[in-house]
């Protein structure tokens, strides 16, 4: 199916089966959702700095959020927190990140004309799209969108009497997430099959770029864990609509004794976190894959310890399935079970440490070219270190007693999975933009965007650890009712200042992105002097990727600055010279 067939506007831009176009669809949808999610956080940050006051900033967010006084009410605050979490975790960092880069990079980097099934791939985007529409719609329904936190623990999420958002809003949330899961399963299966079956001649597993390895393991995690979320949600639908008692028991709400008996909310938590924890790595691994690739290309140096990097991805992927209980240390689970989960959780620190040291060793004696992508990749490693270390506190059940569900957790996961993943994603966008659009993004705007983001992000999330150590629970509309938290006002104001500044800085990126698509300078064939196969395809997008035969691969992806070579990079398509050893 090589090539050039007639494409109409609809088959080219809308119902496209070309993986590159689908990747862009995921990227743009993800970016729009990211803007929405970020605006939400800006609004609740304003609330946290000025509790109960009105603000003109509230008007920037679509949907009716303010009460008649122009202020945010407590249930709307919870709705915002819930939607912010849902959007960022699933829409931006799962679909926006994996959807974009798995689609874009897998066929290009393994030397395939397209995904194994272009049609399923297209379906995967359109399921995601409908899910998006439903989620956004849920903001406007009566009672507001789901408000029980993105983890939607029942009974809160099952009882409209307990919180208004658990009415229609929650129903739409569940429908939306169901479609989302279907979409990501179609995508995930496709990625796995494509990587295993469609590698070009010579592209052995040991020669795969780390991006593809990371995306492969991510897809496997998704395929194994998302169905559990689906069944978990389905049982919740039964409890909500058909009177079953999977998760509900012994409930009196608004003076009404409910009939539910024998169910357990804890069962929901087990099912939810069986997806929920692998989900963290579904988010993180693609980002780490991108970071590995970008660092190696711009350090002009092979990634240090390729095999150890692959092994640590595999180990992290495996461990991520047996640690979910660390989200539930405080549910009253058997202390022995808590011990087991502490043990498995802390083990993840080992492959993570190996990855960090390997990044450091890659930078050691490198010849670093600071593209904006490289800056974001390095910042991603920094966030992975900073956020990963506090995991040692939270993963330790004894210590978790006092920091569980406090701002310490919020700080931890926003740095380790939020920032690392967003940095990885931005690094990916800057790095592969020339391949996506045939244009370059403006470098200087990229620099400004990077430094603004880097400074603001740590300004937002680092102080949260102190709030948590002061005992402040998360998801509090305000903390004025507690004199013990009165000293924390300054910290909250600082966080809000950086959050709003950080949001404004993203305008530079958006501008750069859109401007460069239309007016950016044209790219050359291989702007970063990279080894991987995607840079051997023509600059102009064609369906089928390579105009002639598929390239064959003769070496791994990381021959940078190899002694004896003429240039500091050697494309994977270049055969080994006589007597040249393939090292990795």
């Amino acid at each position, binding site marked *: 199916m090589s090539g050039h067939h007639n494409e109409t506007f609809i088959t080219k831009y809308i119902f496209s089966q070309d993986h590159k176009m689908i990747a862009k669809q995921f990227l743009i949808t993800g970016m729009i959702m990211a803007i929405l999610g970020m605006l939400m956080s800006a609004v609740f940050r304003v609330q946290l700095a000025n509790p109960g006051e009105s603000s*003109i900033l509230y008007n920037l967010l679509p949907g009716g959020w303010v009460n008649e006084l122009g202020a945010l009410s*407590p249930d709307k605050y*919870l709705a915002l927190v819930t939607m912010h979490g849902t959007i960022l975790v699933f829409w931006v960092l799962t679909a926006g990140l994996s959807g974009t880069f798995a689609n874009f990079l897998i066929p290009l980097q393994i030397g395939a004309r397209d995904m194994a099934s272009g049609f399923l791939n297209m379906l995967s985007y359109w399921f995601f799209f409908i899910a998006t529409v439903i989620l956004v719609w849920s903001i406007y329904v009566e009672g507001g969108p789901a408000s029980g*936190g993105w983890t939607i*623990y*029942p*009974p809160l999420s099952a*009882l409209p009497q307990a*919180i208004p958002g658990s009415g229609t809003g929650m129903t739409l949330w569940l429908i939306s997430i169901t479609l989302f899961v279907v979409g990501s399963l179609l995508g995930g299966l496709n990625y796995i099959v494509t990587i295993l079956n469609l590698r070009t001649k010579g592209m052995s597993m040991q020669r795969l770029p780390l991006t593809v390895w990371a995306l492969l393991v991510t897809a496997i995690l998704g395929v194994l864990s998302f169905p559990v979320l689906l069944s978990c949600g389905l049982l919740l639908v039964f409890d909500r609509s058909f009177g079953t008692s999977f998760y509900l*028991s*012994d409930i*009196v709400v608004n003076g009404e004794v409910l009939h539910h008996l024998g169910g357990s*909310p804890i069962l929901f938590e087990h099912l939810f976190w069986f997806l929920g924890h692998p989900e963290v790595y579904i988010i993180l691994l693609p980002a780490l894959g991108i970071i590995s690739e970008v660092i190696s290309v711009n350090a002009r140096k*092979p990634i*240090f310890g*390729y095999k150890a990097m692959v092994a640590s991805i595999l180990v992290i992927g495996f461990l991520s399935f047996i640690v979910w209980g660390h989200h539930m240390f*405080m*549910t*009253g689970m058997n202390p022995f079970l808590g*011990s087991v989960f*502490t*043990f498995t959780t*802390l*083990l993840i620190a*080992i492959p993570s440490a190996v990855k960090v*040291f390997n990044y*450091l060793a890659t930078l*050691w004696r*490198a*010849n*670093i070219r*600071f593209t904006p992508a490289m*800056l974001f990749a*390095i910042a991603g490693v*920094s966030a992975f270190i*900073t956020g990963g*270390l506090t995991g040692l506190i939270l993963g*330790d*059940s004894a*210590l978790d*007693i*006092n920091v569980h*569900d406090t701002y310490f957790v919020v700080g931890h996961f926003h740095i380790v999975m939020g920032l690392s993943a967003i940095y990885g994603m931005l690094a990916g966008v800057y790095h592969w933009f020339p391949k996506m659009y045939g244009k*370059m*993004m*403006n*470098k*200087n*705007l990229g620099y400004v965007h990077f*430094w603004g983001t880097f*400074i603001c992000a740590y*300004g937002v999330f680092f102080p949260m650890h*102190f709030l948590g150590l*002061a005992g402040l629970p998360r998801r509090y509309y305000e903390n004025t009712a507690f004199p013990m938290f009165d000293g924390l006002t300054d*910290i909250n104001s600082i966080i809000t200042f950086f959050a709003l500044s950080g949001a404004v800085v993203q305008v530079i990126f958006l*501008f750069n992105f859109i401007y460069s698509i239309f007016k950016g*300078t044209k790219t050359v064939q291989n702007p970063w002097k990279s080894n991987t196969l995607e840079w051997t395809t023509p600059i102009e997008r064609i369906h089928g990727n390579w105009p002639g035969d598929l390239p064959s691969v003769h070496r791994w992806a*990381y021959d*940078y*600055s190899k002694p004896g070579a003429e240039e500091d990079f050697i494309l994977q398509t270049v055969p080994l010279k006589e007597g040249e050893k393939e090292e990795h």
Partner: protein
Amino acid sequence: MTNILIALVVLLAIVTLVQLTRVSELLGELKKQDVNEVTDEDNKTQGFLMLIIGMGFLVFVIWQMIEWNHLLLPEAASVHGQEIDVLMRFSMTLILVVFFIVTPMLFYFSYRYRGNKQNTAYFLVHNNKLEFIWTIIPTIVLTGVIIFGLKTWDKAMNVDTSDSQEIEVFVKQFQWLARFPGEDNILGKSNFQLITPTNVLGIDEEDLNAEDDKIVREVHLVVNEPVVLKFRSQDVIHSAFLPHFRVQMNCVPGLSTQFAFTPTKTTAQMKKEEGEDFEYVLLCNKICGAAHYNMQMRFVVETQEEYDLWLAKQKTISDKLLTQK
């Protein structure tokens, strides 16, 4: 009006950005070089910024540690809490040491090995010895952390409660209540189906053990006497969080949970150390609805005499039933 102003400012900002970008591109064309190519000059600037701002981040962290230290929770006021604090200090020291070694390395390497057209990177693929070292060291350190952690966890969780004062902590949207077992030291039976506006805890009034139970809106504890809190929730999941005692446990409808501990400092003592405003307080730490942020119950730790006086003043359930009749 303000909206129009905001729109105008945004528009102006965008126009400025467009113009600036155009200018830089035109300049590049004049100089016959690609503006988006990373030059040695860029590497120098960005490498330098990596060092300065990276170190700035570390200074910011140290500043926060000094400036906000007084805001953190005071030392634990319970027996197991003190052990948790020891583990916390150990873990914090460990992660801070690693943080202050690894982060500067990252930013320093970025600066030190900033690119230059004349230079070539050192071709280094892997080094088994190094990789072995940095796999084995974290493994050994973590073994220590895990053993230390599990010991502390075991001590905090597996407590012999046979001599502990039993207290029921009951929660609903959006209020905490507590029940003391009275002289027989046995809590009367309860059932959610019995909950009514007058019998808020759903206590089985037929049960003789319930007669002397006392329902209170504030919990008093005796210093240095073990206590076990039994949690019940009537509607959604809440979480009982007593940060000063290092106590937290979810309250789950349909499931009974508990936490046993021994308070070691009276409220009076804490007031002396932490200021007159100090109170032990129970917070809700699991999202539970609109007023989640506004649920609290006071805990008071006092001497046996003070406690006896307070408890004697509280009405038993049969007292209340009598007054109702």
